[in-house]
C-alpha cells in the first residue's frame, strides 16, 4: 500500500512514534488510536469491496469525519468514515458496519 512519505498514515501528524503492521506492511502512526482507526477502516473497506488488497487510500478531513477514496488498480471506492472514541468505525457511508473490529492494544508497538 502506498502511504504518505511523512507523518501518520491516518492524520499526517509528525508527532509521536508508534509503528504497527497493517496488511503485512510496517507503518508509522502518531498514536495507537490512529493505528487502530486505520486498521479498522482497512478491514471495513476490504469487506465492502471484496478486494484482496488496497493500493492507496486518499484521505481528506479531520477527527469529525474523513472523506476517502480507496484505489485498487483502476478501481476506486469513495467513502466517508467516522470513528468512535475507542477507534472503532462508527459510520461508513451511513451504513451499519459489519467487519470484525481491531481493539486498541498498546503491546503491539514495535
Amino acid at each position, binding site marked *: 500500500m502506498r502511504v504518505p512519505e511523512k*507523518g501518520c498514515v491516518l*492524520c*499526517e*501528524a*509528525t*508527532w509521536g512514534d508508534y509503528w504497527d503492521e497493517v496488511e503485512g506492511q510496517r507503518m508509522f502512526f*502518531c*498514536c495507537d*488510536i490512529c493505528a487502530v482507526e486505520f486498521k479498522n477502516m482497512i478491514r471495513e473497506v476490504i469487506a465492502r469491496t471484496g478486494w484482496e488488497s488496497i493500493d492507496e487510500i486518499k484521505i481528506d478531513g*479531520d*477527527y*469529525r*469525519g474523513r472523506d476517502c477514496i480507496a484505489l485498487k488498480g483502476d478501481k476506486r471506492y469513495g467513502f466517508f468514515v*467516522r470513528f*468512535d*472514541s475507542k477507534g472503532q468505525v*462508527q*459510520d461508513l457511508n*451511513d451504513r451499519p458496519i459489519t467487519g470484525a473490529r481491531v481493539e486498541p492494544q498498546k503491546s503491539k508497538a514495535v
Partner: protein
Amino acid sequence: MWLNRNITKTKTDAKSLSMLLAEFFKVGEGGLQDWVKRRFVEKFYGSRPHPFVLALQHPSRGTLLGYVVEHQHFLRQWVRSCSFIMARTDATDVILYELDNINTEFGGLGPEQPSHYELLLRMGESLGLDRTKILATPALTDTVEAIQVWDNICQQDHWVEAMVAMHGLELIANRNLRKEGARMHYFDPTILETGEVTDATRAFLREGYDADVGHSEEALDLAAKYADRFSIVEDVQATFMRSIDAFDRYLMARLERGRQFESA
C-alpha cells in the same frame, strides 16, 4: 492528539513548542472571557464550522429530533453540573446565578415561562415524537461519554473550572459571536420568521437565542473574577479545552441520532 488538534500537526522542537503553547494559552487584555470565546469560535464557528451547526442553519426534521433526543440527557446532566457548582462554592453571586440558571433551564417559572427542557420536549412532540418515547430513549455512546466528562469535571475539579466548562458551552447559541469572528449564527435567524419550522421549534430556538446571550457572558465574568482570585486561570483553560472536545463529540451524536430518524 491534543497537540494535533489544537497546536500543530508538525513535530517541533521544545523551544518552538513552548512558544506555540504560550501563545495558545495567552490571556490578553479582554481577560479569560475573551480567551474562552476565541477558542470556542475557532473550534465551532471557524474555518471548519461544526457539522451540527451547518445542519441547524435550515434544519431537517431528523436533525431537530436528534437534537431533542440527545439534548434531554445533556439538560439532565446540566442540572447536576450546576448543582455541584452550587454545592462546592460559598460565593453568593455564583449561587444566585446558578439558581437562576437551573430554573430557566430545568425548573421553569410557572406556566407562563416553561423551562428550556420543557420547550425541548414540546419541540419533539411538534415533530411527531411522543414525549414518553423521547424520555424512554437512552443516549448514544458519544453523549454518555461526554456527560461523563462533565460529571467528572464538576465533581472533581475546582468549581470555577466547572463553571467555565459548563457555561462556556452556552456560547454555542450566543448571537454576539459574529462580532468575535464566527462565520455564522447557531441557526439562520430567518427560520424564526418563516414557516420553515414548527411553532414549538421556534419557541425552543428563540428561547436560547434570546436567553443565552446574557447568560453565558455573565457566567464567564464571574468565573474570570474567581479564577484570578484563586490563581487558577491555567487550570480553567485546560479544563475548558477538555469540555469543548466533549461537546464537539456530543454535537456529532445529535447528528448521528438525526440520521436514524431520517432513515427510519
